[in-house]
């Protein structure tokens, strides 16, 4: 089991108890009064069977509050996700913070900052880097380089997962583009691991058929799930942050009801991609402070329900480069979420929005995640750490602390040592060619790619993965998609 980071102090909260209750009541009100459009017959039937008001002609479902609260009580407060190697299993929930990589559709050139499709080799290398980084606890390998040279976009999610499983022992996520979850579930079972499935609403207040299918498929496979939506404040959700939380909460609760009705006790964690709309371009505004506020509220609310929650907006910046803006927007959002009690922070590797991904960024993010993780672990306050006796022993100058048993014992625990960041004295920095963060991260990437060896899949597992890929290929071929 991977330990991740443990938050050892009270989480950051911005809402009063009364405000949390008002948001809760608001979301229940939306579900009972407005309801959702559900374009999935099997879900409609299941929801109707359990007391929801279902208008089959309009495909509109109104969910009574008591059913929502009952289903929320059925969600476990903690659950595991099994990785390919049991040493990398995850225990989601409580005060634990894990990090996962985030996504980017295309590869970005670090000199020109122009994008192009990724290649399978670049995908495999990026996965190897993630496998080597201690602060990456889970991968969404299916979700980066979706635009892949010589690979059909229909095959890319399952090709991405195959590359993820073959090149990393860590836990993996899966979504549901074009039925790919059917093949993903087979692939995971063939290598004896679970996947963290995902189901998303289409805001505002809509559940499409593919989401309904994926809910049944993941839950029936026995896999835990991410549930959530992605309201664009002022676009697909209200412009107010409180309103965007209400609608995101209502949509997430609806998915959670569906999941618990399919199989009570299924592990879920909640989240979404809460982003304000940029009112000039209509695009999502990445890296925004409104997202940070939404997410602090989100974690506070779900902590009250004792259901784990995650942050997905944390890896995205509006910047097109690895630069100051990318650094502050991403790190501040990730830090704030972590302080507020985030359980899984989707972070490493993504650069501009959902457009670009680069392993060099994931290496720089290893330092950011390590910094945040160290921060939330807090400080021990004991007679030994207070060191009053030691201070008495060392006394004033010429006393010093470097050559003491206490320093040898404690400094490594207390400090966080970044693996890439520049800490050289100025003269050394000049002598070594004035290298910047990107150059240092590139060097580390080269070292990882030439030395890191992940536990390989067995020959049988490799064959099974290949067979599932072939099955997927013939499925999409038959549908005339490739």
């Amino acid at each position, binding site marked *: 089991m991977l330990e991740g980071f443990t938050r050892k102090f009270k989480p950051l909260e911005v809402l009063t108890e009364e405000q949390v209750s008002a948001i809760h009541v608001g979301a229940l009100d939306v579900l009972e009064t407005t309801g959702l459009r559900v374009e999935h017959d099997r879900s409609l039937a299941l929801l109707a069977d359990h007391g929801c008001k279902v208008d089959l002609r309009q495909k509109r479902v109104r969910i009574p509050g008591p059913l929502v609260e009952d289903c929320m009580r059925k969600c476990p407060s903690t659950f595991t996700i099994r990785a390919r190697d049991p040493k990398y299993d995850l225990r989601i929930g409580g005060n634990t913070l894990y990090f996962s990589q985030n996504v980017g*559709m295309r590869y970005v050139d670090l000199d020109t900052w122009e994008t192009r499709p990724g290649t399978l080799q670049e995908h495999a290398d990026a996965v190897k880097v993630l496998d080597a980084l201690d602060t990456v606890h889970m991968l969404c390998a299916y979700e980066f380089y*979706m*635009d892949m040279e010589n690979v059909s*976009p*229909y095959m*890319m999610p399952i090709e991405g997962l195959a590359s993820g499983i073959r090149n990393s022992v860590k836990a993996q996520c899966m979504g549901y*583009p*074009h039925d790919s979850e059917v093949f993903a579930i087979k692939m995971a079972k063939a290598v004896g691991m679970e996947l963290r499935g995902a189901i998303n609403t*289409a805001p505002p207040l809509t559940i*499409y058929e593919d989401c309904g299918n994926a809910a049944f498929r993941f839950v029936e496979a026995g896999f835990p799930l991410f549930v959530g939506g992605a309201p*664009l404040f*002022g*676009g*697909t959700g209200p*412009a107010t942050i409180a309103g965007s939380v209400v609608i995101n909460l209502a949509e997430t609760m609806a998915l959670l009801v569906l999941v618990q009705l399919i199989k009570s006790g299924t592990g879920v964690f909640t989240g979404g991609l809460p982003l304000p*709309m940029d*009112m*000039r*371009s*209509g*695009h999502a505004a990445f890296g925004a402070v409104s997202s940070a506020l939404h997410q602090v509220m989100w974690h506070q609310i779900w902590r009250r329900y004792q259901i784990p929650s995650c942050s997905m907006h944390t890896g995205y910046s509006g910047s097109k480069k690895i630069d100051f803006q990318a650094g502050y927007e991403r790190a501040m959002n990730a830090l704030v979420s972590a302080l507020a009690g985030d359980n899984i922070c989707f972070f490493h590797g993504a650069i501009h929005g959902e457009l670009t991904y680069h392993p060099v960024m994931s290496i720089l993010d290893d330092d950011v995640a390590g910094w945040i993780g160290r921060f939330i672990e807090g400080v021990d306050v004991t007679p030994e750490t207070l060191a009053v006796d030691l201070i008495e022993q060392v006394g004033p100058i010429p006393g010093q602390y470097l050559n003491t048993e206490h320093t040898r014992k404690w400094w490594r625990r207390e400090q966080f040592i970044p693996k890439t960041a520049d800490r050289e004295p100025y003269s050394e920095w000049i002598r070594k060619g004035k290298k910047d963060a990107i150059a240092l991260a590139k060097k580390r990437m080269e070292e990882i790619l030439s030395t890191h060896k992940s536990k390989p899949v067995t020959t049988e597992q490799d064959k099974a993965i290949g067979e599932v890929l072939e099955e997927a290929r013939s499925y999409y071929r038959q549908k005339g998609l490739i």
Partner: protein
Amino acid sequence: MSAREVLESLRVAVKEYDSEAAASCAKRAVSEKINPVEAANAITSAIKEIGDAFGRGELWLPDLVGAAAAMQSAMSIIEAEIVRQGAAKKSLGTVVLGTVHGDIHDIGKTMVSTMLTAGGFTVYDIGVNVIVEEFLRAVKEHKPDILAMSALLTTTAAEQRKIIQALRQNGMRDKVKIMVGGGAITEEFARAIGADGYDATALGAVGLAKRLIGIE
């Protein structure tokens, strides 16, 4: 109220995002027998002012969309009157616009629709998740100068290629210029599928449309 005052209040209603007032001014223009082409011009001049202010960065999307809704509510009444009288409305050209099958993203398409209308085009917005046959039907019906398609996802971008192929197979490709856009689309992709033009922004789409029909 004089004809001039009615037209001015129509313009003000659009500029103040007031759909109800815009519709009631339009009805008044019809009942007072004001030339409907002049009324349409008043509406278009108001939305052009809004579009220009958006282009200068003085107004924002909620302003643009609010004015577009007010424009639509008035324009539907005025257009019905134009048709009834058999008059002709001034337009730079006609555009059929939709988001392709499998893709439900609406906002970007609506922005392009609004900006094109503000730019002087007549736009037929055929909605989201539009199948190939529906695009063909709309092109046959409206005989547009330009067909504009939106796709946000990498998997739905391929639908644009299908539509262009279908136009070719039906001997309709040469009769219409094609412009494409959306999150998943690049210049390089647009060229590869045989589109005539691509732009990344709604504002840019207007210039592109003008170039495609040879007015800029």
